[in-house]
């Protein structure tokens, strides 16, 4: 993020140049910064959306930290993020290596592997709700056709499996994205490094850990940050597939905020929850950036 320091001389100076950023800043100000700022007020009020907000001090926050579903939502989203680090980032990395070839067919396979990324999360969620359906879902049909009838589960409607099922769907949707990022980086590693390693007797696995992984460090760190910030924002898939259920087993901060705000009309309380979410995301990402910035890797 320090690229501003080494910049070349500007082609023009003067206050009028601000006109080039003004339209973007106005739009950003009204729809991003202003709501962020006003939420600092609404978070301290009791507000139904119709009557005037009524100042209640810190009571929304004390309530939030005593709200078991709210706390569970953070546990769920943390598990979800850990899951996505394996099912999206690591899987994407492995597939980038597997699909890295100039041979015929690999370009098509990369395209197919990436294709879920262009589907909306809604479409992916609805499709997978059917894949995971107990009675005639694809997954249970496959299990039954192998004679594994006992393995068939109501994946999305029991607490033990619902969150895991969503993680897998998320992996299905996003692994292609991370694969492409790693793939683009792999292409820039000179091939003669691998040829030299092969001559030295290093096998593909050893080459992966001693050459590929260290050279992809930069992308790894970026992808982990993307998975963390994206994970905390997770809403679409949860809303579409389980809407927090069964029995709040897949409730995440975003779904809980929306339920409090728009189903229960507790807009003040819901805003306090958004403030907590914003602070948590910022703290986690800033700590992460701080830890990795020492090795001058993060530009995202």
């Amino acid at each position: 993020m320090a690229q501003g320091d080494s910049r070349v001389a500007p082609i023009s100076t003067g206050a009028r140049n601000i006109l080039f950023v003004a339209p973007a800043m106005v739009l950003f100000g009204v729809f991003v910064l202003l709501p962020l700022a006003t939420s600092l007020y609404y978070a301290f009020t009791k507000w139904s959306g119709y009557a005037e907000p009524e100042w209640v001090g810190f009571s929304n926050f004390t309530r939030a930290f005593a709200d078991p579903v709210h706390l569970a939502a953070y546990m769920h989203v943390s598990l979800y993020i850990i899951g996505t680090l394996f099912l999206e980032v690591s899987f994407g990395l492995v597939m980038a290596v597997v699909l890295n070839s100039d041979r015929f067919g690999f370009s098509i396979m990369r395209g197919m592997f990436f294709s879920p990324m262009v589907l909306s999360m809604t479409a992916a969620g609805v499709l997978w709700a059917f894949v995971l359906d107990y009675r005639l879902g694809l997954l249970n049909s496959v299990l039954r056709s192998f004679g594994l009838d006992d393995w068939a589960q109501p994946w999305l409607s029991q607490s033990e499996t619902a969150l895991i099922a969503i993680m897998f769907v998320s992996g299905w949707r996003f692994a292609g994205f991370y694969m492409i990022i790693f793939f683009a980086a792999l292409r820039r590693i000179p091939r003669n490094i691998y040829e030299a390693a092969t001559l030295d007797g290093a096998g593909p696995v050893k080459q992966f850990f001693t050459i590929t992984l260290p050279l992809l460090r930069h992308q790894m760190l970026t992808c982990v940050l993307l998975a963390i910030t994206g994970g905390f924002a997770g809403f679409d898939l949860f809303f579409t597939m389980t809407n927090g259920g069964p029995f709040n087993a897949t409730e995440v901060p975003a779904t809980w905020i929306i339920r409090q705000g728009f189903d229960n009309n507790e807009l003040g309380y819901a805003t306090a929850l958004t403030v907590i979410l914003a602070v948590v995301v910022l703290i986690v990402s800033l700590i992460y950036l701080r830890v990795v910035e020492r090795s001058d890797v993060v530009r995202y």
Partner: protein
Amino acid sequence: MSFATDRRSAGEWVQFVAGGAIVAAMFYPTIWMVLSAFKSNREIFRHPFGLPEEWRWGNFAEAWDKGGMGGLYLNSIMVTVVAVSLTVALATAAAFAFSRLEFPGRRWLYRLLLIGLLLPPPVVAIPLFAILRDLNMLNSLWALILPGAAWSLSLTIFIMHGYFTSIRPDMEEAAVLEGANVWQVFRDISVPMVWPSMLTLAIVNTINIWNELMFALLFIVDEDKRTLPVGLIRFFGRYSTDYAMVFAALTITTVPILLLYFLLQRHVIAGLSATSLD
């Protein structure tokens, strides 16, 4: 396109088979969705795999009518086209200024914009609802266009700024020496120079805004102003036991996007990998 043509080694065959198997498994749900859309409910239950006994094209017409897909498509297209044009245009101008010009508050404003890279949209859902209500935009497509564009600015400006700093400003400096003003430099030199990147970023933002769900769910009430993702959820809610209908609706909403993607594949992939490189 050229491929390596010498004979594949054993290791390469293993790579090909392993990759192919995983990709096929990952892609199969999409194929299953399309095939099921042609079946009757009874057939989906009895023969979940395989081709339909009879290709029921009528399923699509029925789902199209029941779901009001024409209106959903139209709304999604309007929101996406306006929001993406807006965000790419404003972001290009801003990135140009941040990388090529000097003005008071430049670094400070740029840092402010980067906040949007870390924060997820749910953190503003509720106050944004109040703001849109005060602006009288609730329940209009503007309630999706303007916030959608605003929330895309950070990433777009950030990537565009990277493009600008990777190109030396020689052309622009030469134009200034010849007496062009800043606006002329921007319009005649810089925009044509970064035009391919603008298209790439337009693709990235199109995917994001086309698929946006939360704002569309919260800020739109009227059925005739809904976009595709919300329309699909409502359709799923209403016809959840009519499997053939849901698969037909899913196919109608996803296959055109998938075809477009396979046509523009190189650009889409280039665009999305640009979101994290250099």
